[in-house]
């Protein structure tokens, strides 16, 4: 049953669900990256999320579970940064680090608070990668997702409903990357040949929002 606030356990459940999705889609994401990149996106994301969960488990088993959302996301972000490499490591890493910094010492987030944290994450991705709409990157899934989320919250939606809207928008944004000619990341080296393929990073980002929607709906 959906809640008005999201707590640390729910956020960890979200990350766990995301890990499950990238693991399940390891070959698929890598295959997408074969077409217009260097055939490692699924490998990178799986390595990163596995490391994230090793870190979370270490904290929980070590008796020092995360006290605040910032604690959690700082660990998640730093682990992504230090275990993934490539483009997705700094980008997803910065996303989570900024989420944490924005959530601060909170132990739960309401719909608006979660939205603010997610948007800070998106801003971090833009600060790092300078991507704009239509560059055929994860931005093209993430940005419409955040817009849909904010619109839903403005309309009174709870976190689960807003996440549901975000997930639908991320999927649409992901699908809309297909015809685009890439202007950022590795796919840009292909020029016109990058058109006609889904962007791998937009695809993993859509999984991130799908995981969020499903976790919060549960």
């Amino acid at each position, binding site marked *: 049953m959906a809640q008005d606030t999201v707590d640390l356990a729910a956020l960890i459940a979200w990350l766990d669900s995301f890990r499950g999705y990238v693991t399940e889609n390891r070959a698929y994401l890598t295959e997408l990256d074969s077409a217009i990149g260097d*055939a490692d996106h699924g490998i990178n994301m799986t390595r990163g999320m596995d490391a994230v969960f090793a870190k979370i488990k270490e904290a929980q088993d070590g008796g020092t579970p995360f006290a605040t959302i910032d604690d959690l996301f700082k660990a998640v972000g730093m682990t992504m*940064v230090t275990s993934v490499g*490539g483009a997705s490591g700094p980008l997803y890493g910065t996303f989570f680090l900024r989420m944490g910094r924005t959530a601060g010492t909170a132990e739960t987030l309401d719909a608006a608070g979660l939205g603010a944290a997610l948007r800070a994450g998106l801003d971090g991705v833009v600060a790092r990668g300078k991507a704009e709409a239509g560059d055929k990157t994860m931005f093209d899934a993430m940005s419409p997702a955040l817009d849909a989320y904010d619109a839903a919250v403005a309309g009174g939606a709870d976190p689960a409903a807003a996440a549901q809207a975000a997930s639908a928008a991320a999927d649409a944004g992901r699908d809309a990357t297909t015809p685009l000619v890439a202007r950022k990341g590795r796919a840009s080296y*292909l020029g016109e040949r990058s058109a006609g393929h889904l962007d791998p990073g937009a695809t993993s980002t859509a999984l991130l929002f799908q995981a969020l929607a499903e976790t919060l709906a549960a």
Partner: protein
Amino acid sequence: MKKLINNPDDVLADALVGLAAAEPLLNVDKKNRIVYRATPKDQGKVALISGGGSGHEPMHGGLVGLGMLDAACAGAVFTSPTPDQMEEATKVVDRGAGVLHIVKNYTGDVMNFEMAAELADAAGIQVESVVTHDDVAVEDSTWTAGRRGVGLTVLLEKIVGACAETGADLATVKALADKVSASGRSMGMALTSCTVPAAGKPTFDIAEDEMEIGVGIHGEPGRHREKLAPAHEIAQMLVDPILADFDFTGAPAIVFVNGLGGTPLIELYLMYGEVAALLEKAGITIARSLVGPYMTSLEMAGTSVTVLRADDEILKFWDAPVVTPGMRWGA
């Protein structure tokens, strides 16, 4: 997938074990996946580090040594290393005169090295960076991520490494790096794809009578696919865009014919002959040359051509002693 490996996820770790055992010139920090000189350079000299995804050997780990790099950070196959590796390497090699980061222009490499430079800066180490972006296959525009860094990186590491060995200060070293980076152009092609071990299958399919023109060094497809052609036509397809992009006349040139990993030396020498003939016809004076697989793309078959406009300073540093597993002369 046919490779001499154990578990596909352990390729880098296993290769570092072998490198450490085989090369007494190198120290390998297996945990942080950093390759250092066994004998560090003297205090007061600028240090050079580079790094990048693995699968390009001997670059960069095999280019660590006297007259070249001080350390190299190894990422997973075709994946930039992480900022913590680069920060650690920067701290270890700094001899009090600052550290130059040699970065190839890929979004991941650039972002990770940027984060590392911020971290090193916070730790009080002077860091400068040079980003190579010599691949003329890629269109250059302010709207895109710009050109890839490819073969020129090897030449730059050699030349700038020799300069740092003289005790030149960081500003001088950085200025030379920028000059080299601005004066070289490259273009590559592939006959086959390669297989990222953890992916398990070739990155792209290609027919027996086709080739990819304008590839980088990560097994990615190139700018366009063509019917297979004789070596002299391929040489033309590589040399033409290089010459169209930059004026190499009126100065000595360093010419580098690189192998992508699966192409044997006999073909690289043959290609060098074709490339040299075209450059001479275009009025370019070849002063130095380098032929071999120095910057590979796993087992991809193919080649790339790099031309660097040199001058007396660059030639002097090119000829200076270098003692690394992958490049060695003069000492």
